[in-house]
């Protein structure tokens, strides 16, 4: 009974139980404290929910039912043109120009403070460029509201996990699917046909997405009770649920061990193969070199290299700035 609000209170009121599964707070700020909820530390039987979830092809089809990319692979999807972002006297991005092409996995790397996250936030509309322009899918995204950028087709995950911790994994993903829905208060009160259709659709898609990223059996678990790795996967599922054209992953492998990194790489490839375009910000060079089709390197807010991984990793400027000079080269 180390904490007065903890176990004692929970069992007294009979509202608390705890599973044997790992309950990992991970890097989320929330400490694991009993909140009196049934921590549904149980794996549900997927066959009972929807037998079709056992078929990976069906799952992949539901996940990317609206893909249109195959016809246009290689066309630019997002164009950064001469983008400069200044915060007061600090120039975080200085005339950065690059494209993200449909159907590729683009890696964005650079040392700490190079402007990767600024670049990312400029794309997702959180910062407005001081000069230059960002064009997504043929449309400038200068003055688009943040929640509308999602509807345009840019989805992201967060470097420090930001799930809706009191919602179940499934509900988190359904919030993502809601980005495409239009039911508002009157429709929900009177349960309009559109509302019912959207709800059914959301549930099917969300279950398929959870299964796609590999955590289908944990669907009814509160997201804060998921393990750290599962929380990262859930973030990806939630982002995919918004039916993005471009999926931005902000350091998805932070805190992962090699085995987890490997399975994450497999997942990212699976997402690309399912028709999505992926932007990956990552520090782990092995992961970046292993999974990306192209790499853009930033340093001090400037682009210093842009090319296929092998090319970039042998670029002297990149080596000097980021990869470090190997011992035998200095010898």
């Amino acid at each position, binding site marked *: 009974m180390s904490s007065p609000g903890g176990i004692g209170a929970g069992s007294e009121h009979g509202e608390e139980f705890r599973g044997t599964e790992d309950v990992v707070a991970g890097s989320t700020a929330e400490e694991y404290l009993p909140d009196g909820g049934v921590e549904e530390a149980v794996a549900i039987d997927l066959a009972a929910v929807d037998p079709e979830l056992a078929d990976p092809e069906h799952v992949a089809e539901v996940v990317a039912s609206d893909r249109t990319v195959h016809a246009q692979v290689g066309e630019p999807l997002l164009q950064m043109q001469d983008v400069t972002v200044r915060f007061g006297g600090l120039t975080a991005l200085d005339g950065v120009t690059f494209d993200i092409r449909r159907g590729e996995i683009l890696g964005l790397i650079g040392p700490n403070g190079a402007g990767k996250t600024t670049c990312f936030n400029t794309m997702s509309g959180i910062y407005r460029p001081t000069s230059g322009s960002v064009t997504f899918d043929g449309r400038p995204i200068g003055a688009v509201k943040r929640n509308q950028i999602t509807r345009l087709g840019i989805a992201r995950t967060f470097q420090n996990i930001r799930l809706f911790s009191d919602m179940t994994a499934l*509900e988190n993903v359904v919030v993502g699917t809601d980005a495409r829905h239009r039911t508002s208060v009157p429709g929900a009160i009177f349960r309009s046909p559109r509302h019912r259709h959207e709800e059914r659709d959301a549930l099917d898609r969300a279950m398929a997405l959870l299964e796609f990223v590999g955590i289908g059996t944990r669907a009814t678990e509160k997201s804060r009770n998921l393990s750290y790795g599962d929380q990262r996967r859930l973030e990806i599922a939630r982002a995919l649920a918004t039916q993005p054209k471009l999926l931005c992953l902000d350091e998805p492998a932070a805190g992962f061990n090699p085995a987890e990194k490997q399975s994450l790489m497999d997942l990212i490839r699976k997402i690309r193969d399912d028709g999505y375009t992926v932007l990956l910000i990552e520090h782990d060079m092995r992961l970046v070199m292993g999974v990306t089709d192209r790499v853009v390197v930033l340093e001090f807010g400037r682009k210093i290299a842009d090319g296929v991984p092998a090319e970039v990793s042998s670029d002297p400027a990149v080596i000097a700035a980021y990869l470090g000079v190997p011992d035998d080269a200095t010898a």
Partner: protein
Amino acid sequence: MSTESITPALQLGVGDRLRLWWDALARPTQWLVGVPFIVLIALLPVIRPPVLTTVGTDFGGVLAQFGMYALLAIGLNVVVGQTGLLDLGYVGFYAIGAYTVGLLTSPDSPWNLTDDWLSRDWAWLFALPVAIAITAISGLLLGTPTLRLRGDYLAIVTLGFGEIVRLLADNLSNITGGGRGLSQIAYPVVGESASKPNGVFSAGNTSQPLNSGTWWFWLSIVLIIIVLLVVGNLERSRVGRAWVAIREDEDAAEIMGVPTFKFKLWAFLIGASIGGLSGALYAGQVQFVVPSTFNVINSMLFLCAVVLGGQGNKLGVILGAFIIVYLPNFFLGRTELFGIPINGNDIANYKYLFFGLALVVLMIFRPQGLIPARQKLLTYGRSIYVATRRAALALAATPAPAPAAAEPSDTTEGGAR
């Protein structure tokens, strides 16, 4: 906290078992259990159970007040419990609802309609939707500029709003009657008879046990059920999920495509209209409104009901409202309880002290409230919930495995356990 890892697989508490049992029932069975339960509650003022019945005040009147507070708690729960917007001026909406009815139907008011074309028999019923609409608009007017604020700042602004409404009512003497208030407010005139010339809802109906309080209690039960259906439908929809997402992480919600401002405004508007509905009920029951009734301390009391009962749980906040209204009235006028002499009036007078203490104790031992939130945010989640329940029961039935036998976790984070 090291005891965590060696606790048995699954310990189900009383509340969980109750919930699992309830969820397992088929819909018709749930009706068979639920309807008699509601009927039993509705019959409380008729049965007048020995110890439960209040001594100092009329039991029917207390329950009618409970009905109004339950509505307030449900409305405030939408704003505070679901959407996570701390509203300290909720009493303002209650006041606007009550004053709208008062201004439209009291002979003291310059805007009284009952002199000309509106029959006093129907005046209250006419004023009710007007009151709801006006409060909804006031919620919109308050929300549009202020919902860009967050957390404490929003709380301060709403606190100010609650005071502004009361001060307006107090100082616009030529309209609201100032401190004298508005009297002879209309009420629904139904069921007139020789003994009840003004109908059952009139404050003049003092016949026991079916006095006016009982009738207002019944009316509020009907309204509570309607409001619960509306709010429940909202909760299990895109709207409810947006509210909870905003509560959990507003920025992440915005980036996930939730139009946060729009749904915060809806939450405010819906919360306000429910508050206005409750205010209209109050005005009709008491037939008299004065500004001092809408003191800001009442906002705290409403908030206390929500926090005490369990933020985000509709049943919980109704229980909270019951405690807030019933307990002081229970002690009022009592000189002994189970043979122990007590000074009930003193206990009732110190209600704010006791509620304050109760809140402190609750925050230490049960911060989630008496009945914690267990939201269902999906309209068609039944098959999922069934699967979860089965898994939970199966896990509860299996004996606790040795900690080493626990299924290997897919994370190997050191020190995470």
